[in-house]
C-alpha cells in the first residue's frame, strides 16, 4: 500500500506539472490545448533522437526542452491565430478543434517516421529505501526535478513582476490592460512555458517508464482531468489535484485494475465539477 502511495505521488507530481501548462494557457487565453500530450511526446522523441545521434544526455534533454518551448511558440504564431479573433465559447471550441487537429497530425507524423520510437532514461544505481519501500533512483530523480520546478514556478508567480503580470491577466484581463499589460504577450510567454513544462514531464516520466509515440492521448487526458479538478488557472490547485489523483490512480490500479482507474479519475473530475465548479482551491464567485 505504501509503495502504491509513493508511486502515486511520483506520478501525481508529474500530472500536476502537466496540468499547470494547460490550466495557465486556458486561464490566460481561453485556449484549451488538446495537443499538450503530443507536444510532450514529440519533445521526448527529440531527446531520443539526439541521444541516438550520440549527444550527451544533458544536451539531449536541453534540446527536448527547447523543442517543447518552440512548439508552444509555433502554436501561438500559426494555428491559434484564428482562435484569437474569437471571444467566449466560440474561442474555446475552435481552440479545441484546432489543437485536436494538431494532436492527430503530430501523432500521425511520429507514428509514420518513428513508429517504434520510445524514450527511456535509465538512471543507474540500486534502489533507495523510503518508508521501508525500495524506490528506484529514476523515480526519485524525477520527483526531485518536478518538485524543484514547482518551487521555481511558485517563486516566479509570487515574487517577480512578470509572474504577477501573468496572474493579473488571469484575474481580470480588462483590468490588466488598463495598467498597460498586453495580455497576448503574457499568453505567448505562457504557451512557450507550457511547452517547456510538457517536455520536462516527458523527460522525467521517461526516467520512470518508457514514453512511446502513442503516449500522447493518455498524457493529455490525465492533464485535462487534473486541470479540471485543480481549477482553471490555479497552479497550487494543479499540484494538489495532481497529487490526489496520482495516488487515487495508483491505488485504484492496484486494487481493482488499470482498466478501471481512468474511469475513477474521470468520475472524480465530474464530481469536482458538480460540487466545486471552480476547482479544489477555487473560491465560489
Amino acid at each position, binding site marked *: 500500500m505504501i509503495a502504491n502511495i509513493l508511486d502515486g505521488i511520483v506520478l501525481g507530481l508529474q500530472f500536476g506539472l502537466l496540468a499547470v501548462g494547460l490550466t495557465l494557457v486556458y486561464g490566460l487565453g481561453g485556449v484549451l490545448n488538446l495537443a499538450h500530450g503530443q507536444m510532450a511526446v514529440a519533445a521526448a522523441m527529440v531527446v531520443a533522437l539526439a541521444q541516438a545521434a550520440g549527444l550527451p544526455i544533458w544536451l539531449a534533454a536541453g534540446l527536448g526542452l527547447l523543442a517543447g518551448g518552440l512548439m508552444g511558440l509555433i502554436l501561438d504564431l500559426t494555428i491559434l491565430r484564428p482562435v484569437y479573433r474569437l471571444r467566449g465559447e466560440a474561442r474555446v471550441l475552435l481552440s479545441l478543434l484546432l489543437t485536436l487537429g494538431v494532436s492527430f497530425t503530430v501523432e500521425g507524423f511520429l507514428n509514420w517516421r518513428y513508429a517504434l520510437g520510445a524514450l527511456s532514461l535509465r538512471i543507474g544505481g540500486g534502489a533507495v529505501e523510503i518508508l521501508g519501500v525500495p524506490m528506484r533512483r529514476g523515480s526519485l530523480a524525477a520527483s526531485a526535478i518536478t518538485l524543484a520546478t514547482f518551487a521555481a514556478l511558485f517563486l516566479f508567480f509570487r515574487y*517577480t513582476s512578470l509572474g504577477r*503580470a501573468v496572474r493579473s491577466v488571469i484575474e481580470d484581463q480588462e*483590468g490588466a*490592460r*488598463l*495598467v498597460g499589460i498586453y*495580455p497576448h504577450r503574457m499568453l505567448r510567454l505562457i504557451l512557450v512555458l507550457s511547452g517547456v513544462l510538457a517536455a520536462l514531464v516527458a523527460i522525467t516520466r521517461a526516467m520512470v517508464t518508457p514514453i512511446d509515440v502513442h503516449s500522447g492521448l493518455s498524457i493529455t487526458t490525465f492533464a485535462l482531468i487534473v486541470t479540471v479538478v485543480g481549477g482553471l488557472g490555479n497552479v497550487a490547485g494543479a499540484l494538489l489535484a495532481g497529487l490526489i489523483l496520482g495516488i487515487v490512480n495508483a491505488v485504484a490500479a492496484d486494487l481493482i485494475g488499470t482498466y478501471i482507474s481512468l474511469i475513477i479519475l474521470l468520475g472524480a473530475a465530474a464530481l469536482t465539477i458538480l460540487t466545486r465548479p471552480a476547482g479544489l482551491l477555487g473560491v465560489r464567485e
Partner: protein
Amino acid sequence: MALLELDQVHKHFGGLAAVNGVNVRADDGEILAIVGPNGAGKSTLLKLIVGLETPTRGAIRFAGQEITQAPPHRVRQMGIAMVQQTPRHFASMTALENVALGALFGRAGAHRQEEQALELAGEALSFVGLADRRHDLVGHLNLHEQRFLELARAIAGGPRLLALDEVMAGLNDTELEASIAIIRAIRDQFNMTIIWVEHVMKAVMSLAERVVVLDFGTILTEGLPAEVMRHPAVVKAYLGQEMNHA
C-alpha cells in the same frame, strides 16, 4: 494647446446611440468634469478615450497622435490612465504589488527594473496616504482606501492624463475632502490633466475648472461650474432630479 481632442465621436450599441457626436477638448493641466444623468453616456465616453470601446465614428487625438483605434494597453503606455466606476484591483496581490504593475507596465519605453517599480509604487502609495497599508492584501482595504489605491496605481506610471469614473461615489464627508485634496495635488504636483465623471455635485463645484454636461449622448452645455449649474436646461434635465436624490 489641447492635450486630448474628441472630434464628432459616436458610439452606437445596436440601435442605441450611447455617445452621439461629441466634441470635447481638454487642455494641458486642466480639471474637466463630465456630469449628466444615469445612462447619459459618461462612462462610455471615458471607455472610448482609453480604448476599452472603439468609436463607431469620429476621431480621438491625444498629444498630437490619433488614438481612435488604439487598444487599452497602448493608450495606457502612451499616457492615459483610468480609474473605473467599480474598483478593479488584483485581489491576490498586496497594495504595493498592485501599484507596482502600473509603475512597471504603464509607461512605454521606460523599461523600469523591478526594484525601481516597487520604489515608484511606494511613492505613489505615500502620495495617496496609504504608505502604511502597502503590504496588505487589497481585499483588506475599505472602499475609499481601494479608490485611493487605484488612484495610486493610475499615477504610478506617470501618465499625462487621468480619466476618473465616479471615484467619489459612496464616500463620507471626510473621505470626500481627502479625495478632493488628493486629486487637486495630483494635478498641481504632476501637472496631469484630469477628465472626471462625477455625480457628487459638491465635489464638482469645488474641484472642477470646467464642466461638460452630457445627456442622451450629446453635450447639453459646457462652461464654468457656476455658469453650467444655472443653465435652465441643466436645472431641468439634470439638477432637479439630482436634488431630489440628495
